[in-house]
């Protein structure tokens, strides 16, 4: 199974062929495609202002498992991205990965990063 770092690099490679607008469209599509559970509980709701995000984070052996969703498409895209990168990662891997920096490097727009809730999501995932 690939490491977190490898998965992040694969996605970065995919993104590298896209311009800013296409990246944005890519996130929308990613959001549209996200399949997830529909039995989220209240305590799985991550505090955010403009949209609702549910994240279920648990451990299997030493690995992090994540599923999640949102009522907003773009946020769903971000959740999907988080899952692609962090799901099945080891706890250590996950803790040492700087998602914000990764977004910067891959030029995912600042306002996307600053959407309320992202910090909260990362806190749920990385502790």
């Amino acid at each position: 199974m690939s490491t977190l770092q490898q998965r992040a690099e694969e996605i970065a490679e995919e993104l590298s062929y896209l311009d800013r607008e296409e990246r944005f469209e890519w996130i929308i599509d990613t959001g549209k495609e996200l399949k997830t559970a529909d039995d989220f509980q209240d305590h799985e709701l991550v505090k955010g202002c403009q949209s609702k995000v549910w994240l279920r984070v648990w451990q299997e052996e030493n690995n992090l498992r994540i599923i999640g969703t949102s009522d907003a498409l773009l946020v769903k895209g971000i959740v999907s991205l988080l899952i692609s990168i962090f799901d099945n990662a080891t706890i250590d891997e996950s803790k040492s990965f700087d998602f914000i920096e990764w977004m910067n490097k891959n030029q995912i727009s600042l306002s996307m990063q600053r959407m309320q809730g992202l910090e909260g999501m990362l806190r749920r995932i990385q502790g």
Partner: protein
Amino acid sequence: MKQDFPLFTHNPDLVYLDYANTAPKPQSVISAVCEYYTHYSGNVHRANHDIGSRADHAYEMARMRIAEYLGAERNEIVFQKNTTEAINLVAQSFVAKLIEPGDKILLTGLEHHANLVSWQLLAARTGAELVFSQVDEDGCFDEQHWLKLLISGVRFAAFTAVSNVTGERFPIEQMLAAARGLGVPTLIDAAQLMPHERIDFDKLGADFLVFSGHKVYGPTGVGILIGRYELLNQMDPWIGGGDMIDTVHLSSSTFQEPPLRFEAGTPPIASVIGLGAAIDYLDGHLTETQHAHESCMMQGVLNALNQIEGTRFLGDPTSDARLASFVIEGVHSADLGAYLNEKNVAVRVGKMCAHPLLEQCGIDSAVRASIGLCTDQTDIDKFADALTKAVKRLR
């Protein structure tokens, strides 16, 4: 007009429809701020040297300018940090003294948090009860209900002049007349009125009026409280420190006259000076023609929105408002905002610091488009175009 605003010359593709949040600044305002820092960055009220004298002079000239523009006296203009702080000052220094436990303070269901949470804090401290005029089914102010509550006996009434969510302009003239008739003192939250309308404090007959510099094309960090001098003079200071005292002994102090009594510590000198320039700019540009132009631009915004099926407005934006808040069926407001942003159209998304109102409308998050001095037909066209695309893509 955009050529006066560096924000637009530096971001030529920007379609800024978030004036109600904070307004761009004309070059004259930025220059006034820079001029202070580059030429005479002294402290005020302690004029021992030319640098300080020039700062003091510019600071007090700004006060004078603002007083003139607003039909108030120089010593009725108090500089605070923002609208929020100004309202809190009135709550804590004026209203607190009036209140006996159980006394009522009258608000409306359409207030910005600034004009709500401040009163909640006061109520918790004093045992005052907050009463709210209801919002009717269209999301509009219910004047009859407000009058009924007013007549039923309240100690103070605070209300917005223009709602930051629905854009509705309240019938403040009639409301103030009614309150005066009953001897109820009043505060007007003019944060959303001031950028679009000239007012005369003296004629208006309110006791207190507040607004923010950053929403009237001025700098951040300064808000204005205008208060009738006679009332300001009865108020104890809320914040203690330098410049607001007359004599100080270890055990007690006597205070300066208003407005200095309420301007403790070093004030936001550069922002006050910049605000003076912003008021000059407003004075020059808030003409009849501009008013008609803004009405026309707003109609453009509404037309664009009405093109979209499933648009629902909060309140009634057809009443010559300067902003419209809305939701679009099947499109999340956050997505819509983000998509518009991607197309360089800046709008506001969220609860607009008016949670209770949004809750009542059963809406989690809305989008708000607000216009201002520089809004032009290009902005409207680009907004309409981006909106259509967004809805197609996001639904």
